[in-house]
């Protein structure tokens, strides 16, 4: 009877030791995991690697490590986020609606406020700029019959507004000697301001002169945001 009691007590003791050891191990593992929480390779991760990785997995792993090490030895590279230039917007069309608290489509107010916050203080009016004819020729030469047919159909011509000096771009090929950003619009006698008439004609472009042909303006996509040209577009399209 006594020996049975001693046996039970030993089993209890063993269970206690095993239980406490298990709890202790779990606490230690949690503690180590916590200590290595910012590390990519925690001890558990390493354990899982040794248990599950095949030869190929190890080869991939070593390759990745090597590439990471190479990347880390490169000089600091900074990704610069450049905001795309935005088309000018005529906010006056919303002025009365805002005053009268009329319905304004969702997001438009946000756009108008964002537009009003644009900083145009660093823009400079360009001295070297294309005339109306220069601008029209640059546009026609770029789009060819897509635009000539529009101008012929509407008996229209192109006018250019205020020109803002734009930074010269260093691309392969010809060297730029002048670059301006400006709004343009098509006009005819009957209807006045026709805006862009239709695509592909746009209302804002860059005009560029190159070293090899310093008297000719060429068309390019606009490279900076400029204010809406209320003088050019005093008659709304």
């Amino acid at each position, binding site marked *: 009877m006594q020996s049975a009691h001693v046996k039970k007590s030993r089993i209890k003791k063993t269970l206690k030791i095993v239980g406490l050891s298990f709890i202790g191990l779990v606490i230690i593992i949690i503690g180590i995991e916590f200590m290595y929480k910012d590390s990519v390779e925690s001890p558990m991760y390493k354990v899982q690697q040794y248990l599950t990785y095949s030869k190929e997995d190890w080869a991939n792993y070593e390759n990745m490590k090597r590439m990471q090490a190479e990347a880390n030895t490169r000089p600091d590279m900074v990704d610069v986020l450049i905001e795309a230039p935005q088309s000018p917007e005529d906010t006056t069309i919303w002025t009365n609606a805002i005053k009268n608290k009329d319905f304004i489509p969702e997001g438009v107010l946000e756009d108008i406020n964002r537009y009003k916050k644009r900083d145009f203080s660093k823009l400079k009016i360009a001295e070297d700029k294309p005339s109306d*004819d220069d601008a*029209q*020729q640059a546009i*026609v*030469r770029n789009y*060819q*019959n*897509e635009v*000539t047919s529009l*101008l*012929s159909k509407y008996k229209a011509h192109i006018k250019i507004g205020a020109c803002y000096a734009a930074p010269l771009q260093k691309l392969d*090929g010809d060297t730029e000697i002048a670059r301006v950003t400006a709004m343009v619009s098509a006009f005819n006698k009957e209807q006045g301001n026709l805006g862009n008439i239709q695509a592909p004609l746009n209302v804002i472009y860059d005009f560029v002169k190159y070293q090899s042909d310093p008297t000719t303006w060429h068309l390019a996509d606009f490279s900076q945001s400029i204010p809406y040209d209320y003088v050019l577009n005093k008659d709304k399209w």
Partner: protein
Amino acid sequence: MVRFSILSLLILSSLSCTKKEQDQAKKTLYLTTSANDVYAFNLADKKLLWHAEAFNKAENDEVNFFTVDEKHLTKAYIDGSIIQYDKKTGKKVWEIKDTDGPDAKLYNFDFNEVAFRLFYQYPLVVNGNIIFANSHGEIKSISMATKKVNWVYHNPNIIYSSPKVVKNLVLVSLNGSMIAIDIKTGKKVSSVNYDENEPVTNEMVIDGGNIFTLSQNNLLSYFTPEYNSIWDYKADNTSQSSTHNILITDDAVYFGGSTLFAVDKEKGELLWKTELYKDDNALLSVSKCDDGVMVSTRKELLKLDDDGKIIARKKLASEAYGILYLANNNYYYVCQNGVIYSIDAGLQHEAVFYKGINIDPEHRVDNTYMFAE
């Protein structure tokens, strides 16, 4: 019975071969010269089938080419005329006179001091449209059925050579650059600049869908329509090199002037070069032959073997003028005496093919254009 069957089979097969050869034999030779008359000859009996006389001779004093299709021969003239002739009768069936497009003023390119001309145009005839370019920088597609202009692409440069078509692209050499235009819309698809030191005024040559250009300084370039370079070969020591006398075979490209160059077509490596003459002569044309190439210069015809060795010569009584054209195993060439000659591949048997070709004594460039079918 077995013998009779075998004999019958042999006779049938020999008849079939003869018929095939006859089918392949060319029947009609078309010719134009710097004087711009057009001639059609029956190759078998050397008879003139028809002759379209030149006109506006003061202006039409350089050769312009023609395109032959199922029913018509369509010829460009330097004064801007494009005329379609019935290829059997020579009767004029269609004509236009190219002029500056109505939108030219909008582009304001300065062509005030450039005469309006069509230089070296075929013109191309593609799906019922003619495609060509003029000296005022215009590349045009015109519907033959309606004579309506499908599209015009305007350039600031004088265009000296004919456009070429590869798939749905019209490719045009513009001296300093090459432009690719969509054949249906006339919209520019792409353009590339040639090397500044290697301007190309020669016609580009299309072979197997790829492009050969030859610069003024003898850089032979081979590239894909996307302008991916396959190879370049820079030739030295030559003169008068032009794509008008280039020959492209399955294995090699032959070009040059006083020296003829043979370049491996696949690798762009020199196979051989042979001096054809020292001075007071001119390479006119290079033509295929079975075991080498046949070359015409102003003063003589030369046969070169596969290694570039001159193996036969034929001195000419009258100076040659224009291309050397191979048809039905004979070579045809025009001389300054107004005679078309034919000669065999061994340069042994020269014969008068036709006397009385109109040679304009005032022509600026010695050239002819021939096509046989």
